């Protein structure tokens, strides 16, 4: 079936037989909740569908619903995710295994509708499991896997499945929709170990206030342990997933890494571009491979180290920019490799594809050449390198000129491919 990323997400919710959908519109996510609203009105989706007045309320409600034992689904994007930031920490602390599909979009100001991972990266420390999809098929697979892992009593954490706005949300790709009975056997009805139903003979106090550090630390640590456990539970889940659906998943994906000298680390839909660039670079004699992060939280530290420790140099390509720092994932990759033996001679940070900026072969080749130079000469750029195409830069210059603003020289961090 040819489906957009958004309609795939809706299909996954439908196949997972969710009990509750909490909705609030935002571009480029709206199609997901519109589709679910339509199915709900037609009786094809047996879930209570509720429109909220904000993402903050929507995510709070979805989390609370999952404490009653309902399988809850919601979706948002960008500004909406940040508006709900407090609710993200709340539902993770509630240990509410709800599903949140985030359709990545840059965070204003300035406003933009296209993809950037600043939104989902801002949520990386909230306690949510994060699975980042490259394809529409992965959107479906990760939603089913996310529910299974999150609802496991060893985990009990909410999950964000991330897909790129526009690039994936509105792109049609072939998607294999599994049989409902197969989904039921992979993902049986959620059974909350301590549902909050207000029964007469039990008193459940969910998330009372802490007054001292020790008990607060204990509960925070419990969330940390659960998040770490999620990786092992995921491992078990993907085995069963493969048995039933025939598709293989892991926390990372290595591509042409076995004899690679240089590796590009990537995530989400732009990985398809990097992959084809790697293939072309191989034809042109570069010994290059790609490591794609599928699971961002918990961060698959050991797997990243194992996959990259033999390469000479690593280029971490990211679509987010933390002002004053650089890419959010770069330090995580560096940390994973720091104690590895052997370890790469150089690990470099590249930022590109912000706000849906295009990247292609030339960007990949540039990253590889910078890595080569770093390996051979020890000379490497300081801080993150921002990738910008020459023709884009010329257009910006022209716009500034038109506005009568003198064109300042941007720092050398911006590379004009």
């Amino acid at each position, binding site marked *: 079936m040819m489906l957009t990323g958004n309609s795939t997400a809706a299909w996954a919710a439908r196949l997972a037989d969710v*009990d*509750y959908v*909490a909705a609030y519109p935002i571009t480029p996510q709206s199609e997901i909740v519109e589709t679910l609203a339509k199915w709900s009105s037609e009786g094809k989706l*047996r*879930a*209570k569908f*509720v*429109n*909220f*007045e*904000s993402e*903050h*309320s*929507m995510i*709070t*409600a*979805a*989390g*609370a*619903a*999952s*404490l*009653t*034992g*309902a399988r*809850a689904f919601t979706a948002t994007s960008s500004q909406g995710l940040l508006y709900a930031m*407090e*609710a993200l920490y*709340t539902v993770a602390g*509630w240990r509410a295994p709800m599903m949140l599909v985030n359709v990545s979009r840059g965070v204003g100001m300035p406003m933009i509708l296209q993809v950037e991972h600043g939104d989902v990266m801002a949520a990386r420390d909230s306690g949510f499991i994060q699975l980042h999809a490259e394809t529409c098929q992965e959107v479906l697979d990760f939603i089913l896997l996310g529910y299974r892992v999150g609802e496991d009593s060893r985990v009990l954490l909410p999950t964000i499945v991330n897909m790129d706005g526009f690039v994936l949300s509105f792109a049609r790709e072939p998607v294999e929709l599994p049989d409902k009975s197969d989904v039921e056997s992979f993902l049986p*009805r959620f059974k909350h170990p301590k549902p*909050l*139903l*207000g*029964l*007469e003979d*039990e*008193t*459940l*106090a*969910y*998330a*009372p*206030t*802490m*007054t001292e550090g020790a*008990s607060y630390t204990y509960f925070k640590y419990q969330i940390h342990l659960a998040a770490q456990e999620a990786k092992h539970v995921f491992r078990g889940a993907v085995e069963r997933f493969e048995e039933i659906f025939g598709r293989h998943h892991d926390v990372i994906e290595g591509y042409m890494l076995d004899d690679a000298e240089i590796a590009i680390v990537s995530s989400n839909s732009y990985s398809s571009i990097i992959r084809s660039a790697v293939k072309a670079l191989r034809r042109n004699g570069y010994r290059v491979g790609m490591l794609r992060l599928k699971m961002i939280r918990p961060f698959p530290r050991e797997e990243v180290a194992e996959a990259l420790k033999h390469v000479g140099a690593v280029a971490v390509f990211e679509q987010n920019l933390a002002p004053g720092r650089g890419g959010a994932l770069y330090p995580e990759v560096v940390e994973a490799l720091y104690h590895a033996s052997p370890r790469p001679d150089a690990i470099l940070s590249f930022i590109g594809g912000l706000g849906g900026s295009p990247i292609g072969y030339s960007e990949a080749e540039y990253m590889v050449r910078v890595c080569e130079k770093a390996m051979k000469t020890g000379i490497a750029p300081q801080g993150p390198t921002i990738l910008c195409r020459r023709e884009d830069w010329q257009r910006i210059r022209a716009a500034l000129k038109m506005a009568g603003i003198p064109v300042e020289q941007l720092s050398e961090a911006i590379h004009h491919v």
Partner: protein
Amino acid sequence: MSEETVFKTMKDTPRQEYLSPGSPLCAGCGGEIIVKLALKVLGPRTIVVSVPSCLALLELYPYVSIKTSMLFAPFGAGPAAAQGLVDGIEALASKGVIQNPGTKVLVLTGDGAAYDIGLQATSGAIQRGLDFYYLCYDNEAYGNTGFQYSSATPFASWTSTTSVGLESSGNTFWKKDLFEIWRAHNPPYVATVAASRPVDLMRKFEKASRIRGPKLFIALGVCPTGWGADAKETIRIDKLAVETGMWPLKEAINGEVRHTYIPRKRKPVEEYLKTQKRYEHLFKPVRRDDLIRAIQERVDRYWESVSE
């Protein structure tokens, strides 16, 4: 009124307690009395949704003073958490996964959440017709954080962020009319209550429990700590608020407002103001007749509009 009620006198107060004694709330907390009475009517199958407020002290790990189940929610999202609970239970019951346990969900907040940061979420929940109870104990400031101004703070009163000095006589704004804001959403039931009128309070919760949809209560939360009064004065101050007409007791069923108690001869507001240090600057070092008169006129004007 000839409506059926089991609450005719104080003696009809249910004996069951859903609040344990010995909570860390301040002595003389008016809010505690309100919650205690409300839970007696609502009963054990209630989930209390709590948000940051003084009454969050009723749930301090590892002790919980509330004997029913509870969930702690973000400051501005109490009604949204209630919505998730109500909807979750309903969704599971409609799919036949559970039998509907007839759970009541009570959102319990102070005025900071109700009047300010949670107003949007409350507006949403009321407009969606959510079947829940909302109890705001209004102590007219952010009490738990040290008594700062909220939009429930009365005119000319002191808070820690509406200071009194040569250039200021305390709060310059009039208290927000939350009753009318809530009523404008057309909820089936909205009422004000006070701790000094327990029978009125219990009857209102009883009446509300027969109604489906949003059931909303604003309770005067006499706060000796913040208002500057002796803890033993709580009920006397509460009574004065009612008898001066500063805290009207009323309800609106399907929008129609009815006062459940009309003080026959209203006492001057001064008698109420004088009991609290937050109004001390109206009397010392010089008497501020202008401000006292402004408050009195506002109260008089309100009661002139009451036709009963």
